[in-house]
């Protein structure tokens, strides 16, 4: 699939078939996530692939925004010790979260290219996620990306509006801007 078609087709999916996602596909998704930029090239990102149905079910129980029936999850985590040492508090509290977002988007784009669906989940129940995933104290669970094979009747797409695009200064529209 051509790159801009992947970008155009990328959306959040919440209805999946029961077909498991192969470990090969999960590895490719994590590879795509790991290719996303990280501030300072700091090796602080951790991925945990979850496809044990009992653990996925538990994540669905303790993560309120996880409302899909995805059979697999990729948890994107940050090593807080490493990020604080390499990038300071701004790295720990802000930059690392941006980097998690870039990794998540790469995974979602890769899922689209592979014919899979993905959905992001983030909530205020991080302690529960840490308990379920048995994370050490210095590893923060930042986002779950639920992945699976798209159901025959997918969830409805969200209508995305192109944001205003200005040229050189705020309020000066870029002529002909748009995809």
């Amino acid at each position, binding site marked *: 699939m051509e790159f801009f078609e992947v970008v155009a087709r990328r959306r959040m999916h919440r209805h999946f078939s029961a077909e498991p996602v192969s470990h090969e596909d999960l590895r490719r998704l994590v590879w795509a996530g790991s290719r996303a930029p990280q501030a300072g090239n700091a090796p602080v990102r951790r991925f945990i692939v979850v496809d044990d149905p009992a653990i996925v079910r538990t994540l669905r129980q303790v*993560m309120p*925004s996880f409302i899909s029936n995805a059979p697999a999850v990729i948890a994107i985590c940050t090593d807080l010790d490493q990020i604080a040492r390499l990038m300071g508090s701004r790295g720990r509290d802000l930059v690392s979260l941006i980097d998690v977002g870039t990794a998540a988007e790469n995974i979602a784009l890769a899922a689209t290219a592979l014919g899979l669906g993905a959905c992001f989940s983030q909530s*205020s129940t991080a302690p529960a996620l840490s308990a379920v995933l048995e994370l050490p104290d210095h590893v923060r669970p930042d986002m779950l990306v639920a992945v699976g094979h798209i159901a025959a009747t997918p969830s*409805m797409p969200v209508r995305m509006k192109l944001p205003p695009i200005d040229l050189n200064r705020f309020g000066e529209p870029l002529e002909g801007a748009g995809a």
Partner: protein
Amino acid sequence: MSETPDNPLFDPLVYLVASARDCLDGPILYAALRMIEAVSRTVEAAAELPNAAPDPFLAEAKRRIDAEKDSVMADREHFVAWLDGLLIDFANEAKRRNLARR
């Protein structure tokens, strides 16, 4: 080894505890979504209870919730209007059931 109770309601109860914490930091619209999601999960769990009688009204409500809940992300006004409709249907059903108990 300790015995693990097989209580179908455990699933929606865990979800409600997690949602209670999550709602403290989230937008009010998502709190509504969490509650409606809990309704869907509770209907599913209740159907697994021993001697559970089929409840077509709740089964249909779950189907409607699962089909419409995504709209909170796409169209707030649509979601609110849909939720109003669901509430009216539940109110009418509650009245019907309460009158039948007299």
